[in-house]
């Protein structure tokens, strides 16, 4: 590692994008939050005031919104845990083809466009959707899941649970099988071995995964907006309302910064939890606690054990009498097994369900979007796409931006990654955080900051403005992905090349580049998908003439469901599956999910 020399050349391109598209807008936004706004007119009086913050933190109405956002995120996290943990166990235990398939199941929601997914959820959870139809059939009642809080919670879980699953399953995989065998060899049942050995060791992954899901749920925009029908207000939708409808810009900025603060706290907690999972051997902090404190804990544990042991003895002898009858034991095992399989099938169905629904509905013969579709099979909506030039324009625009993002993002991101991984210079960690910061900031905030900034510079709703927003996110993703693959790179290979007479550039092209290709490909795929599917920031930065495909879909869903949406969403789902297949062919899904 080269010390001292600051690799300015490598970092400058990436930093330019970040400064222009991220830091400057954010600073301006912060400045804005201290001014006085005028609801309805969008005018800003440049007089310093704390009014925005006091209003936000003092008014019960807004505090209720915080509480609601918090509650929804909490429910989503809990639900992710309940559904995600069995899924993580399944993933960790599977091998070969089954494992690849499970990875595909877990990754599909992440790669599918959020609007397409949410449409599927609306179909699934709607008042006349399959779930309600089933309830009506069995119980004679219907539940309003959308637009309503349960719908939002389910939607958020559906979207973010995969992150939880990946976090926990990677920790589970690192737990040695022989630990469970050792427990069983000492007389412990399979369940007890899991509860006393595997589960405690998996907790770092659970904590990290939960924090991540919570953070994402807290800052989510599209899902609560669509599944809340505009009626359920959370912090992000409040920002949208204040920015786009009420036009009270300083107030919007204040809300944004409170949200940002909360996010940063969560991110810090998450990063700490993450370092707990990366240590191979769990080193308990126990031996650092003072002796009397740990002694007290031990006494309490022993007392609790003694109380339950007596009960356990009686239960144990009861179970043993049962076990005398061999048949019952066998059938209990069978029931547990069938129950386990059913649960796992249901969870997988939960993750994937909305997607086939969208596709099925897209072939509907009628113009009413219902499930099951009426009117027979028809390709009319797909054919109709050709008559909707605005959709084709949006598609081409999204494609164009995505491709540019790939090219620019991969180059700047790789250069930045090289600079961050291979050079040591003062303030490196700060610079690294700067490069990755767009990932830690809720997309809504990036959106409003950019909207304001572009308006100031006269670049509103321009191609360049939209591209800038995408580039900020993309370069952060690529930097992270390529950094991850560079860290494991064996420098002695480059040294061998130099030793044999190769110059720096030749070595880079012939030795380094081919070897970091997997990381670059993963980065390129990310760049494309992140840009093509990007909805939240684009909602704020696009305007007539520069509407990207996801934004057009988003607007359509808000106004009323045009069946053409199902066709486009169907196509986007197919796109996601194709990308999945491509990734598996080139990289392998397991490797890819480790790089996210």
């Amino acid at each position, binding site marked *: 590692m080269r010390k001292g020399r600051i690799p300015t050349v490598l970092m400058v391109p990436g930093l330019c994008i970040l400064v222009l598209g991220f830091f400057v807008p954010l600073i301006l936004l912060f400045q804005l939050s201290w001014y006085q706004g005028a609801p309805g007119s969008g005018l800003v009086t440049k007089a310093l005031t704390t009014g925005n913050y006091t209003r936000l933190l003092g008014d019960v109405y807004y505090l209720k919104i915080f509480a609601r956002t918090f509650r929804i995120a909490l429910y989503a996290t809990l639900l992710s845990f309940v559904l995600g943990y069995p899924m993580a166990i399944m993933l960790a235990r599977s091998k070969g083809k089954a494992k690849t398939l499970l990875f595909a199941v877990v990754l599909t929601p992440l790669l599918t466009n959020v609007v397409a997914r949410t449409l599927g959820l609306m179909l699934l959870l709607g008042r006349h959707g399959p779930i309600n139809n089933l309830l009506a059939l069995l119980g004679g009642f219907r539940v309003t899941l959308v637009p309503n809080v349960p719908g939002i919670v389910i939607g958020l879980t559906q979207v973010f649970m995969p992150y939880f699953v990946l976090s926990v399953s990677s920790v589970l995989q690192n737990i040695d099988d*022989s*630990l469970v065998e050792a427990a069983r*060899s000492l*007389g*412990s049942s399979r369940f007890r071995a899991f509860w006393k050995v595997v589960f405690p060791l998996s907790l770092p992954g659970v904590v990290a995964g939960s924090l991540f899901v919570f953070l994402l749920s807290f800052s989510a925009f599209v899902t609560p907006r669509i599944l809340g029908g505009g009626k359920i207000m959370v912090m992000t939708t409040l920002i949208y309302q204040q920015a786009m409808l009420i036009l009270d810009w300083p107030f919007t900025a204040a809300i944004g910064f409170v949200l940002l603060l909360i996010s940063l706290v969560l991110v810090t907690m998450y990063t700490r939890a993450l370092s707990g999972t990366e240590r191979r051997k769990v*080193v308990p902090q126990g*031996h650092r606690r003072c002796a009397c404190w740990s002694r007290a804990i031990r006494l309490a544990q*022993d007392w609790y054990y003694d109380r339950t042991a*007596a009960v356990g003895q009686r239960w144990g002898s009861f179970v043993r009498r049962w076990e005398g009858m061999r048949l019952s034991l066998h059938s209990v095992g069978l029931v547990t097994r069938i129950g386990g399989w059913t649960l796992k099938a249901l969870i997988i169905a939960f993750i994937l369900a909305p997607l086939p629904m969208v596709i099925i509905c897209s072939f509907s013969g009628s113009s009413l979007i219902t499930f099951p579709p009426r009117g027979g099979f028809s390709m009319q909506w797909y054919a109709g796409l050709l008559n909707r030039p605005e959709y084709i324009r949006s598609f081409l625009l999204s494609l164009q931006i995505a491709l540019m993002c790939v090219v620019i993002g991969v180059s700047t991101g790789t250069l930045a990654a090289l600079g961050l991984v291979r050079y040591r210079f003062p303030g490196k960690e700060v610079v690294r955080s700067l490069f990755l910061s767009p990932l830690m900031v809720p997309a809504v905030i990036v959106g409003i900051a950019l909207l304001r900034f572009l308006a100031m510079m006269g670049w509103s709703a321009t191609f360049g403005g939209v591209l800038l927003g995408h580039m900020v996110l993309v370069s952060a993703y690529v930097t992270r992905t390529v950094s991850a693959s560079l860290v494991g790179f064996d420098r002695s290979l480059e040294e061998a090349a130099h030793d044999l007479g190769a110059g720096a550039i030749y070595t880079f092209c012939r030795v380094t580049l081919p070897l970091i290709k997997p990381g670059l490909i993963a980065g390129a795929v990310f760049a494309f998908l992140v840009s093509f599917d990007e909805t939240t920031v684009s909602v704020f930065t696009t305007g007539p003439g520069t509407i990207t495909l996801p934004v057009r879909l988003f607007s359509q869903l808000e106004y009323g469901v045009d069946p053409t949406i199902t066709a486009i969403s169907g196509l986007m789902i197919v796109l996601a599956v194709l990308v999945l297949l491509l990734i598996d062919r080139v990289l392998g899904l397991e490797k890819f999910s480790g790089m996210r």
Partner: protein
Amino acid sequence: MAIVELRSIVKVFGRKVRALDGITLAVREGEMLCLLGPSGCGKTTLLRTVAGFEKPTAGHVVMNGKDMTNVPPERRNTALVFQNYALFPHMTVFDNIAFGLKVKRWPIREIRRVVQETLQLVGMTSMEQRWVQQLSGGQQQRVALARALVVSPAVLLLDEPLSNLDAKLRVEMRTHLKDIQRSVGITAIFVTHDQVEALTMADRIAIMHQGQVIQVGFPHEVYNKPNCTFVADFIGKSNFLHGRIDVVDRSEVFILECGERVRVRSDGRIKGEAVLVLRPEQLNLVGPTVLPQEGNVLPGVIEHTEYLGEMVYYYVHLNAGPVVMTVEYGKPMRGWKNGDRVGVAWPADTGMLLKA
């Protein structure tokens, strides 16, 4: 008297891999039986079958008269000490050892007492509040052993107990393990590929090869009376002289491939093609002109010597063809050198005749 009986155990993995090919074995009460063999011979699979982690494709596992073949590991009265120790990293030494007792719901006071006793037995007192990561390899092994012993299993199972220790510790632990086993009086089965471990620790050795038990016996039996060339080769060092048995003047003679004749002691059971197995310590080096009186002498040239401090190995290239290894211990050493012409001599009644 047999604590563990294995009856015709067959284990097939997938469709083709016959890891265990009809094993019948009995382990006597209080003995330490060793399963010895090269990698892939099935010894670990057999151990895991006794523990209950592998279900045999055919055959029965009988413990104390009861058929345990279909009984899961948690309800067998066995305890397995894993090769990598498998100590629970989120628990202290005390909690690790207490684990099995807590499963049985023993009262805490009893648990504390018994754990202390066991810690004393393995020599780890005062370590009970340490975390597993703070222990050295040897200490971890002793905790793993204590954890298994404390549940008083009928059979103690050890999977390559010494292979993760450095050479010096290995020698120390060899005696320590054996002492503990003897003092507790527990029946034990251990698996190893190291014949030194087998010879020093086991009461009986079962040599395995390709899923079968080739020979079972006391260490001196297995060493001095191997029943086939594989065993003779695996245990100790052996020289193999190929040839055939023939009857000349109504006494049996062993004719080497090159035609030379040597006198052997034969019990008449082996006829035709055979192998004469001679251990290095059974061969003496004599001067080139010494003639045999009661024994055999084959002339040769010293090709290679290995000086090991307390002994020297000589590799002699016999005129008859093969290269044999001989050893000289202690003092005085004749100090033969490479290139010396010597005679390799041995009494007619030493050596073992085995089927080719």
